[in-house]
């Protein structure tokens, strides 16, 4: 992937596929490092599946037997000297507290660090594709915090306006652009 934000888009799709109602995308950035967490309340994975989930030959897709999403994120983190880890609670065993958390840590000054890229487009694409899922995006930067929580939007908009309406997507994009622009 050319940008980390594309890996984020890809991994968040797994959460949606796992029937998550809330997907949190958290970025914690310093001058030296970037920590990414994608946390969902989806159906989770079994211990056994978790063991082999970063193997490209593990996948839930049905069109073929190869899945590259998590292996690619792991590679992107490890090639900077960082790491990726996954914890998961399967719905069958944890009916009230299930879901998956993927954490990846990157050293930004490493030659092989993939830039974050257009994370705003990633957020907009996720909301466009899954307007009924809630997303909480928080990007902590050294000098400011950028934040979007679709639950707050839903509170204002009510139930009859889909979040995928073009007007709403435009609002989300400009809200994020505005927040990133502040303090520059």
């Amino acid at each position, binding site marked *: *992937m050319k940008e980390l934000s*594309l890996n984020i*888009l*890809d991994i968040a*799709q797994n959460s949606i*596929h796992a029937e998550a109602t809330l997907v949190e995308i958290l970025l914690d950035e310093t001058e030296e490092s970037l920590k990414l967490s994608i946390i969902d309340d989806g159906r989770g994975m079994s211990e056994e599946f978790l063991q082999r989930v970063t193997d490209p030959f593990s996948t839930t*897709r049905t*069109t*073929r037997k190869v*899945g*590259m*999403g998590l292996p*690619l994120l792991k590679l992107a983190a490890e090639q900077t000297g960082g790491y990726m880890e996954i914890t998961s609670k399967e719905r069958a065993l944890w009916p009230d507290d299930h879901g998956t958390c993927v954490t990846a840590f990157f050293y930004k000054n490493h030659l092989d660090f993939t830039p974050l890229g*257009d994370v705003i*487009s*990633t957020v*907009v*694409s996720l909301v*466009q*594709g899954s307007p009924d899922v809630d997303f909480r995006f928080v990007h902590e930067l050294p000098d400011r915090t950028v*934040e*979007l929580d679709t639950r*707050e*939007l839903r509170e*204002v*908009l*009510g139930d*009859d*306006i*889909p979040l995928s*309406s*073009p*007007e*709403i*997507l*435009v*609002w989300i994009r*400009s*809200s994020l652009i*505005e*927040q990133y622009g502040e303090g520059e």
Partner: protein
Amino acid sequence: MKSLEELKAIRERMQNKVILREGSAEKRIVVGMATCGIAAGARPVLNTFVEEIANRGLTGKVEVGQTGCIGMCRYEPIVEVFEGDKRVTYIFVDPAKAKEIVEKHIVGGQPIVEYTIGAAEK
């Protein structure tokens, strides 16, 4: 956060319009957004379609959706246009081609044959 007041104004504007539910559109554009599609450049293609449909005031008439991998990763980004029971499959789509597809196929009603999978497999 960008003002929620603005969002309220959007809500009021939209409540006056009848919101068409999924499935009521005349045409449906579907972009492949699995790992293969994303890596090949599907995200800007998706966003181009969303913007073009909004800018041309086609919201409601044309729906833009996302799908997973359809098993032809080497042709990604793949875009399918559905109209009734007809389907046209475009391959190697980029934002420029996406604009052209909206103009000629979605608005003009003429599929762009040279961008389709049929043309590539001849």
